[in-house]
């Protein structure tokens, strides 16, 4: 049943109604349309806010994380008062305040091959606000199988990408990226951070595309990829074509159902621990503290980036950023025992892999990194 607008709604949406491209009929269309947003973080925040404000009648939110204060630099749907709450609940509260007339469905669960089709089937568009390859490929394949547009946005540091992958009318994500890069091949400047406003820009562009598609107006970014760089303030467009060999949307597609995306991308499960190099390598911050009291000259190897030392440092530690460990290992003595650390333990686990393959044996990985050290041993240091 098509729902009409109330008088209050006509006033609320009057700036839309004034434009012939939207008008009363367009606004009614939005009211009767739906969008599923995968992720309620940096990209999902502006998408959800603008779709709710625009009057999209039903919005689905998928996320299983809780709001952390380090999210607030970019995840503008959340606030200081909702730190510690489920992201989907925090977002629902904000949207209810912004526009009480819309329905918000929340899915407090990871988006997986098991639940994705069930969750996504009742929405008109799917919006990709994820930050990892397995969920991106899953989101793409679900969109292809259900015949729905996938409004894609992705960010890294200062770079953003936006497109609409809609296999019925153009290429899908896999046509451009048939497979993800092998983990570890390209350096993550990462642990890397992101300019807070970048997902705001990219998510707002995704919201724009979603609204255009729901209204059926304008030229959607189907078959085109927008590349945005915030530092250069450059917007480049390239053309994307359907890949005849695409494994999900090509004429000879061999992937007909959802697969194991973590295996496909070579990454561990949602809750896998990437901060351990293996139990035999681990040392806890308490153990390290005790070791240092006996052996103050124990070598500490800090594999973080130099600018992170300004935030927090352990006195006397030697700094070799992870990216330079392979080239600079001659500065280290494999006969000397050392404890390797980073912010949280994942880069140091990688460093231990690199050093171990070069024959180093007397190493330990500091569990939880300098953040655990700051939380449990040296409380004068900040956690970041």
């Amino acid at each position, binding site marked *: 049943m098509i729902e009409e607008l109330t008088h209050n709604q006509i006033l609320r949406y009057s700036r839309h109604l004034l434009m012939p491209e939207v008008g009363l009929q367009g606004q009614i269309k939005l009211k009767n349309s739906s969008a599923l947003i995968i992720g309620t973080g940096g990209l999902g925040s502006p998408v959800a806010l603008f779709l709710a404000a625009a009057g999209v009648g039903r919005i689905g939110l998928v996320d299983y994380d809780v709001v952390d204060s380090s999210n607030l630099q970019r995840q503008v749907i959340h606030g200081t008062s909702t730190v510690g709450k489920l992201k989907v609940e925090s977002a629902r509260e904000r949207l209810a305040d912004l526009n009480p007339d819309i329905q918000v469905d929340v899915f407090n669960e990871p988006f997986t091959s098991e639940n994705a089709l069930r969750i996504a089937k009742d929405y008109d568009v799917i919006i990709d606000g994820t*930050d990892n390859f397995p969920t991106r490929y899953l989101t793409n394949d679900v969109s292809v199988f259900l015949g729905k547009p996938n409004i894609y946005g992705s960010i890294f540091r200062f770079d953003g990408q936006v497109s609409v992958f809609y296999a019925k009318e153009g290429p899908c994500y896999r046509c451009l990226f048939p497979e993800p890069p092998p983990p570890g091949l390209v350096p*993550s400047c*990462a642990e890397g951070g992101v300019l807070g406003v970048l997902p705001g820009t990219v998510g707002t562009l995704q919201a724009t595309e979603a609204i255009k598609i729901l209204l059926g107006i304008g030229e959607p970014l189907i078959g085109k990829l927008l590349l945005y760089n915030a530092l250069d303030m450059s917007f480049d467009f390239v*053309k994307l074509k359907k890949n005849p060999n695409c494994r999900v949307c090509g004429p000879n597609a061999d992937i007909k159902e959802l697969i194991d995306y973590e295996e496909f991308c070579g990454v561990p499960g949602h809750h896998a621990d990437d901060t351990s190099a293996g139990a035999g390598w681990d040392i806890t911050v308490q153990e390290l503290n005790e070791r240092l009291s006996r052996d103050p000259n124990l070598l500490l190897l800090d594999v973080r980036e130099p600018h992170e030392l300004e935030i927090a440092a352990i006195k006397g530690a030697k700094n070799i950023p992870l990216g330079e460990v392979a080239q600079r290992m001659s500065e280290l003595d494999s006969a000397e025992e050392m404890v390797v650390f980073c912010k949280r333990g994942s880069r140091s686990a990688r460093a231990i892999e690199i050093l171990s393959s070069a024959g180093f044996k007397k190493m330990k990985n500091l569990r939880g990194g300098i953040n655990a050290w700051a939380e449990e041993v040296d409380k004068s240091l900040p956690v970041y």
Partner: protein
Amino acid sequence: MTILRIPTPLRAYTSGKSEVTVGGSNVAEALNDLTAQFPSIKPHLFNEGGELRPFVNLFVGESNIKDLQGVDTPVKDGDRLMLIPSIAGGSPFPLQGEGQGMRVA
């Protein structure tokens, strides 16, 4: 000479440069010039057999070289080449990021 645009994740290998001027009459020659200038970028673009890695997308102007003649695609003065990386969000390359599996951007 041709301008080759370097995406942020690969700028670590081009001394931070966002654009590199390269010579050559086709894509293969242009990329050879790039790797001659910045050897450490090579393993990120090419596999051990010297072939362009499948997840590397290179565009000449608005078109993917996969839709043209691959690395034999001619380039001429004033053309703009662009490398387009797979980026995933907060942590671009899983296993290395500090973020957990499904955290969102």
